[in-house]
């Protein structure tokens, strides 16, 4: 076995992953909080007004990073779901199911902030154009995955059934992303582009990118936290969990006896 596969196997074992996740989680949350606060200050205070929308455009500093995370979380969930279905690795089942509620929350925030911005700017809270409809569908897919996972008694069977649904829903991702190019929509096209120049001034772009990094880190922090809980639940009877529980209850136990 070469070193790479060795590390994959090691990382895939619940006790090792649990240890690494416990160490990483506060860093994810901490750095996300610092970058997020700097980004929010930059976006809401430092960045100049927009030439057309005035101050109302500032909602993009919440809306756009959350929208990106809604898609990213789904992709992360689908990749883990795929591995879980083919290789039946416990850790990937847990990771896939851990990312569903986090992704759903980001998608929900995207829809709410977009709606709040839509009323004054477009003139309506909601309209059934391709972008808005496919984003709503994304939220319902998350709900479907969460619901299916909780509807089946056996945790591992539940995870695999929900993984299957998550994997099928992956066709919605390109539809959400490209809807503004494929169809005439009320929603504007992409402002920040990976290829080619972005359509946003540099003074407004840096807080947006900082917030994008912050939301990614926050996502990983939450997924690690949820995955730790999921692993402990699944492995409740195993030795490593017992050792962990004993190690944590030692101070109080020694106090009692």
């Amino acid at each position, binding site marked *: 076995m070469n070193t790479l596969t060795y590390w994959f196997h090691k990382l895939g074992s619940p006790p090792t992953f649990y240890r690494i996740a416990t160490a990483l989680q506060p860093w994810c949350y901490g750095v996300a909080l610092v970058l997020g606060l700097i980004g929010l200050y930059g976006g809401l205070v430092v960045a100049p007004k927009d030439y057309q929308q005035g101050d109302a455009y500032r909602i993009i500093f919440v809306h756009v990073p959350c929208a990106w995370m809604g898609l990213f979380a789904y992709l992360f969930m689908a990749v883990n779901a795929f591995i879980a279905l083919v290789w039946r690795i416990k850790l990937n089942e847990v990771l896939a199911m851990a990312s569903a509620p986090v992704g759903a929350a980001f998608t929900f925030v995207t829809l709410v902030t977009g709606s709040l911005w839509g009323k004054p*700017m*477009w*003139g309506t809270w909601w309209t059934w154009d391709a972008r808005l409809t496919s984003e709503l569908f994304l939220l319902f897919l998350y709900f479907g995955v969460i619901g299916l996972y909780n509807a089946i008694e056996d945790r591992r069977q539940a995870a695999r059934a929900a993984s299957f649904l998550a994997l099928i829903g*992956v066709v919605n991702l390109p539809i959400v992303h490209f809807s503004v190019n494929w169809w005439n929509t009320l929603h504007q096209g992409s402002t920040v582009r990976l290829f080619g120049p972005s359509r946003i001034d540099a003074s407004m772009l840096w807080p947006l990118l900082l917030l994008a990094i912050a939301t990614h880190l926050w996502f990983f922090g939450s997924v690690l936290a949820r995955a730790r809980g999921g692993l402990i639940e699944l492995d409740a009877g195993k030795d490593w969990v017992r050792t962990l529980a004993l190690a944590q209850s030692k101070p109080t136990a020694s106090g009692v006896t």
Partner: protein
Amino acid sequence: MTPTRKRRLVIVSLVVAAVGVAAALIAFTLGQNTNYLFSPSEVQAGHVAPDATFRLGGVVLENSVHRASDSLRVDFIVTDRFKEMPVQYTGILPDLFREGQSIVATGKMDGGHFAATQILAKHDETYMPPEVHDAIEKAKHVDHASADASAAN
């Protein structure tokens, strides 16, 4: 990879591919029907059924907005820079409604003009500070002025 895993890999991949093809076919078939709006050119080319309620999208032509003095009635022309369409609307307009701005009007054809029941402003994906916008406008004017000057010479 064990044979069981290989079999599962093939099955899962096939299912995802099949769903992808199905979704692509549906999206392709829906085609025009999922279009949120029609441009004046498309309307004049007869892409919209008569008496149908639809959304008309385009730019509000510069110097075409006329507001009635005694009511909320507004008359203006929507253009896609190829064809033009006169629009009539009575009601409150969104903040971003102005000449040269993209809008989406819901309504139906009434003779030669479009009778709108709702006007939404469509925003583009460009964000910049007012100063940058002014500088760009100024640069455009300088360009025009020098072009005019060279044309006059």
